[in-house]
């Protein structure tokens, strides 16, 4: 097979045109593509020349260009302040600095599997900007659910809405080593107003499935006082509600126990912080 063509289009329209070739692959950081390059790939489309690497705070939220590296996100001062360093606390546990210096947020989300990033973004109600010839914006959950329907689109940005006052969040990852993939991860967020939870997000991931919201646990938390009894109930519910499976990393039973512990620890941490910022 002839080697692929490596191109850096100067416009999104040109990039989409190339993507419609039968065997094209998009290159963000390229760290996944380079390891799993099928022999029939004829075009590698590098998105580096499209100006998609900026991180900008706007009125409605923070817009992270899809070509921003994970390091750029980790080091961004505004994102470092967001919810007492919630995003940064997760990002420093993703891979290694070597990997983060190359990997892009857009490439990571488009991959849509094996992720500590996606659970955090789901709790933040993140939105994804995509281009398929025209610009569209959709919720991250909707984007992930599209599955194979995402082919032929280019992620242009991720948007994190500004959290409401009184919001706190916590991320936790269990792994064997500092560089390992998660056995299980957990991202929780709550907004507390006048002593009661008004918004709750609970995402447990690497179960081994990609993180998804536990709606039943969230419903339990909304309206509650986020006290120790409620937290204990929520953690027990997470234990049974999580879609845990066994794989080479961990057994389903162990993951259920991790889900209980992670939920309890995250919510306890949140309870001490949420509501302290006046609504």
């Amino acid at each position: 097979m002839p080697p692929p063509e490596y191109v850096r289009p100067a416009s999104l329209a040109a990039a989409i045109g190339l993507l419609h070739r039968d065997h094209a692959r998009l290159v963000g950081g390229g760290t996944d593509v380079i390891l799993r390059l099928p022999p029939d790939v004829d075009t590698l489309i590098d998105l580096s020349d499209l100006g998609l690497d900026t991180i900008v705070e706007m009125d409605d939220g923070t817009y992270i260009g899809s070509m921003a590296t994970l390091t750029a996100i980790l080091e961004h001062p505004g994102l470092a302040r967001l919810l007492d360093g919630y995003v940064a606390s997760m990002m420093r546990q993703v891979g290694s600095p070597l990997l983060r210096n190359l990997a892009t947020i857009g490439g990571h989300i488009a991959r849509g599997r094996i992720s500590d990033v996606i659970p955090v973004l789901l709790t933040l109600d993140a939105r994804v900007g995509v281009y398929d010839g025209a610009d569209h914006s959709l919720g991250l959950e909707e984007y992930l659910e599209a599955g194979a329907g995402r082919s032929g689109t280019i992620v242009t940005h991720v948007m994190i809405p500004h959290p409401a006052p009184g919001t706190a969040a916590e991320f936790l990852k269990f792994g064997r080593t500092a560089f390992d993939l998660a056995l299980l991860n957990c991202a929780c967020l709550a907004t507390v107003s006048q002593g009661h939870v008004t918004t709750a997000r609970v995402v447990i991931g690497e179960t081994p499935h990609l993180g998804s919201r536990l709606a039943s646990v969230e419903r339990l938390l909304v309206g509650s006082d986020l006290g120790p009894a409620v937290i204990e109930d929520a953690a027990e519910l997470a234990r049974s509600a999580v879609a845990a499976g066994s794989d080479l990393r961990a057994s389903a039973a162990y993951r259920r126990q991790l889900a209980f512990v992670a939920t309890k620890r995250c919510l306890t941490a949140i309870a001490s912080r949420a509501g302290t910022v006046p609504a």
Partner: protein
Amino acid sequence: MRVTFTVNDRPTTADIDPGESLMWVLRRLGWTGVKNGCDNGDCGTCAVLVDGRAVNACLMFAAKAAGTTIVTIEGLGGEGTLHPLQRTAVDSGSVQCGFCTPGVLMTAADLLAHNPHPTEYDIREALVGNLCRCTGYVKQIEGVLAAVAAMAEDEA
């Protein structure tokens, strides 16, 4: 295809396969301080600086490096002189087989360029992607801490 970049201050043009990694290209150019430990992004022995940031060269398309400034271990020190990180690596006894050392030092160089006063924890966090089979990491971390002190003294 042809790609042009700067390696250790030398403008370089190379013929490459569009699908190949920077690690293979740099080694073919003679920069064999860039080690091939796993060719999978798991060990860190191929770490080089690209525009000042340490990356796994095996995970970077060589074509992606077009127009960049690359530094390998051979270019970390000056002509005939060792970088403090290299000096303290030797003095701290952290070089056993030496295979992981280039990757460790390039990663540490990136860390110190962006955080000149790291804590021991910062150094440990920075090195999570650099595996070592020989040392148990203790002396590597001591070596980096000693380089931090030496470089701070040079500044003073």
